[in-house]
């Protein structure tokens, strides 16, 4: 119990630890992978941003420089028409026509350059929906361009420049414009006018954002001072967002060294809704050094990576759950297997003990009666499993060999237990019973009681009277044994009886036959005839008969069983033994009794005849040279036996005879008492209990007690309607 608990606990923790360690390791690898991918993405983003910034600034630069070029290309046109102020209107118109991006063009002359044109002269052409309109702006007093910062700057620097973008309301709506101012000088190099072109930048916002790096990312142009030049339209990006970006860039440019304008600058920011964003911006490499900015958002840049990571994480969690489950299951199975092994080992060792116990029950000393020449027995039981359901047994009582062979239905432990019970029953039932049918009956009754498992036993019980070779037997559904006699091989004729343990009220009948001297009784269980080879063929009765017939009649029981075993093994080959195989062979070889004395006395069934018996026995003792107390013992034993017969074999008042025959070979005296009365077997009567007090002692049973004590062997046999009681005494030592 403790062991199981420990191993279960340890196994569980160990597997949990293993799973956790693996998870941590894989998570580490995954994290490294993530950060590496993040790093690569970041690099890629920067590369892309650089390209984006570069291309956008180039685009702006190109737009501006194309406007500059347009202006430069018309400088000669201006120079050529300087002498005719009115033709300058046409020049401004041509300037607009030269470049579609140019919204307006003007020439602002220094005051009083053309006195005939007034103090200020500024030809101006601009686009409207109906074409180009040309006018003289100076006529309007509200427009004094000399006060304009751009004019003053030009007056001071006399160098071309781009103005900061500004809003200008045109017919097409509010426009974002920037003005390129260029100094016009006369032939002497004196500054005489500003040539300006207004470049519309409104389109830039749209053009800038026609292509995005990411769905939500956007680009914008602005001046360093924080004036927005171009931004995506309000529908795609809110004004607030754009303004926030602009102010962040503006704050950043203040802190930043102006010299380092080659590389882009990165600003990370967090939106109010928690979105992480990045601003990359760079200055245009040429004048007017405006800023190009790219704004993108973390979830889009690294969104797919995060998504991938989430998926991988989910997959990993699922994988680990699965792995954990598998490990737990595997460990549980292993533990279960181990426990099963331990259990099996215990069962096996118990079965080994059970097998030993079972084999202990069976006769195991062969030859069992080395001193007897008239009987030789050999038995063999090979179980198919550790324990078997077959049994055989034999024992000698008086001059009778009791033997049995049986086969419990089924195999294994239950059969073995019933086998043990049956074996014990056989011994107890035959202790005071010479009739095999009655022994069988007793076994059947006992087996049927409480036999809920419906197991049964086929059984053959035999009682062999050794002096006569008279075999009485009873077969309860067992395979008929064989008799190997000098002439032939015969199966013992058996009545069809049900096995024991089936019905309680079966009447078993005794059968009889005579065993010839020198013949062998061969008993077996169906493990022999039903032995299977690898082709599932049965060994069968014909093969059994053949091998038995081939046995020499000189073979001992042991040799016969060895021959049969060998034949079966040869037949079965490598196939597994399917059933218990039991064989029992009994060879009957009675020695002839060479009598040197043979005398007979016949008495009436009257105790008054007893003195005649004494005279007869005294005469016999004398002839055999028997002395007291042996002679007296003989007389007492025979008297008791004869009186017993007189008392019980004939009912009171019925006259009958008792014949007493004494025969001896000089070593042994046999007294054979024969009567024709009712069957009466004194040998199975219970002995008187000699340990009781006088008051408890009953009359009776004393006679047979004395007979058994005084004689070496007492044997009863009923043959041909006669009771034959044989008393045997060894006299050679007297």
């Amino acid at each position: 119990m403790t062991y199981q608990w420990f191993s279960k606990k340890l196994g569980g923790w160990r597997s949990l630890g293993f799973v956790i360690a693996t998870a941590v390791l894989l998570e580490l690898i995954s994290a490294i992978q993530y950060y590496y991918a993040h790093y690569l993405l970041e690099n890629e983003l920067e590369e892309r941003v650089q390209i984006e910034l570069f291309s956008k600034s180039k685009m702006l630069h190109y737009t501006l420089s194309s406007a500059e070029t347009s202006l430069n290309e018309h400088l000669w046109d201006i120079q050529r028409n300087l002498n005719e102020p009115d033709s300058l209107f046409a020049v401004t118109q041509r300037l607009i026509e030269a470049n579609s991006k140019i919204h307006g063009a003007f020439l602002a002359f220094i005051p009083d350059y053309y006195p005939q044109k007034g103090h200020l002269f500024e030809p101006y052409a601009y686009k409207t929906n109906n074409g180009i309109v040309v006018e003289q702006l100076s006529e309007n007093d509200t427009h004094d361009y000399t006060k304009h910062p751009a004019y003053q700057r030009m007056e001071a620097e006399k160098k071309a420049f781009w103005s900061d973008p500004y809003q200008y309301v045109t017919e097409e709506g509010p426009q974002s414009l920037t003005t390129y101012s260029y100094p016009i000088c006369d032939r002497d190099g004196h500054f005489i006018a500003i040539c300006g072109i207004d470049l519309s930048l409104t389109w830039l916002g749209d053009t800038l954002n026609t292509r995005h790096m990411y769905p939500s990312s956007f680009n914008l142009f602005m001046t360093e001072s924080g004036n927005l030049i171009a931004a995506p339209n309000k529908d795609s990006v809110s004004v607030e967002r754009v303004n926030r970006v602009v102010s962040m860039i503006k704050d950043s440019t203040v802190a930043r060294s102006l010299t380092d304008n080659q590389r882009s600058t990165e600003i990370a920011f967090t939106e109010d809704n928690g979105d992480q964003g990045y601003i990359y911006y760079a200055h245009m490499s040429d004048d007017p050094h405006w800023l190009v900015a790219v704004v993108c958002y973390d979830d889009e840049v690294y969104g797919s990576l995060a998504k991938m990571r989430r998926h991988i994480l989910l997959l990993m969690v699922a994988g680990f759950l699965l792995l954990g489950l598998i490990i737990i299951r595997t460990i549980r199975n292993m533990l279960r297997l181990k426990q099963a092994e331990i259990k099996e080992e215990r069962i096996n060792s118990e079965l080994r003990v059970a097998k030993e116990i079972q084999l202990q029950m069976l006769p195991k000393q062969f030859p069992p009666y080395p001193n007897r020449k008239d009987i030789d027995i050999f038995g063999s039981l090979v179980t198919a499993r550790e324990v078997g359901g077959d049994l055989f047994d034999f024992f000698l009582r008086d001059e009778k060999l009791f033997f049995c062979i049986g086969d419990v239905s089924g195999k294994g432990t239950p059969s073995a237990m019933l086998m043990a019970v049956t074996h014990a029953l056989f011994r107890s039932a035959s202790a005071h019973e010479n009739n095999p049918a009655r022994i069988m009956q007793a076994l059947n009754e006992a087996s049927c009681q409480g036999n809920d498992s419906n197991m049964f036993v086929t059984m053959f019980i035999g009682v062999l009277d050794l002096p006569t070779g008279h075999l009485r037997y009873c077969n309860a559904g067992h395979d008929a044994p064989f008799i190997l006699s000098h002439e032939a091989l015969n199966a013992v004729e058996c009545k069809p009886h049900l096995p024991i343990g089936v019905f309680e009220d079966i009447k078993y009948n005794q059968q009889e036959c005579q065993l010839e001297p020198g013949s062998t009784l061969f008993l077996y269980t169906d493990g022999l005839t039903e032995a299977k080879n690898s082709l599932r063929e049965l060994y069968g009765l014909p093969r059994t008969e053949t091998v038995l017939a081939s046995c020499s009649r000189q073979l001992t029981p042991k040799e016969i069983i060895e021959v049969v075993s060998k034949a079966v093994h040869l037949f079965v080959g490598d196939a597994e033994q399917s059933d218990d195989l039991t064989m029992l062979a009994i060879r009957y070889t009675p020695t002839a009794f060479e009598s040197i004395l043979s005398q007979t006395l016949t008495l009436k069934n009257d105790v008054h005849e007893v003195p005649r018996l004494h005279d007869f026995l005294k005469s016999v003792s004398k002839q055999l040279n028997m002395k007291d107390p042996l002679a007296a013992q003989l007389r007492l034993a025979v008297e008791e036996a004869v009186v017993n017969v007189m008392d019980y074999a004939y009912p009171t008042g019925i006259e009958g005879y008792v014949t007493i025959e004494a025969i001896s070979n000089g070593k042994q005296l046999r007294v054979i008492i024969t009567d024709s009365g009712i069957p009466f077997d004194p040998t199975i009567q219970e002995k008187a209990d000699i340990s009781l007090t006088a008051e408890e002692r009953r009359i009776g049973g004393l006679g047979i007690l004395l007979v058994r004590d005084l004689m070496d062997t007492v044997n009863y046999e009923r043959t041909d309607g006669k009771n034959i009681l044989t008393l045997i005494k060894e006299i050679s030592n007297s």
Partner: protein
Amino acid sequence: MKTKIEEIDGKWIATLEGEMDTAAALEMEEVLAPLYNSNGKDITFDCTHLEYIASSGLRILLGILKNAKANGGKVVLKNVSNDIKDVFRMTGFIDLFIFE
């Protein structure tokens, strides 16, 4: 087989002589009849000349013993030969009687 009984000093003395086989025991039973009702008197069997006893003889002795004991008497067997004592021993009667 010769059997006689006599009453001396309030005690029964029975003398058994010869061989007490089953036939003799039948005859003896009549002779010994008074001992079956001894009224508590002690009984002594003189077995000096008893040569043989069968189980029927033992049965008679047992009957007498049972009666005597029931009435508070004793049964004593005198001068029993070893061979006959063996018979008593085999039957367990050796412990029931008093041997002198």
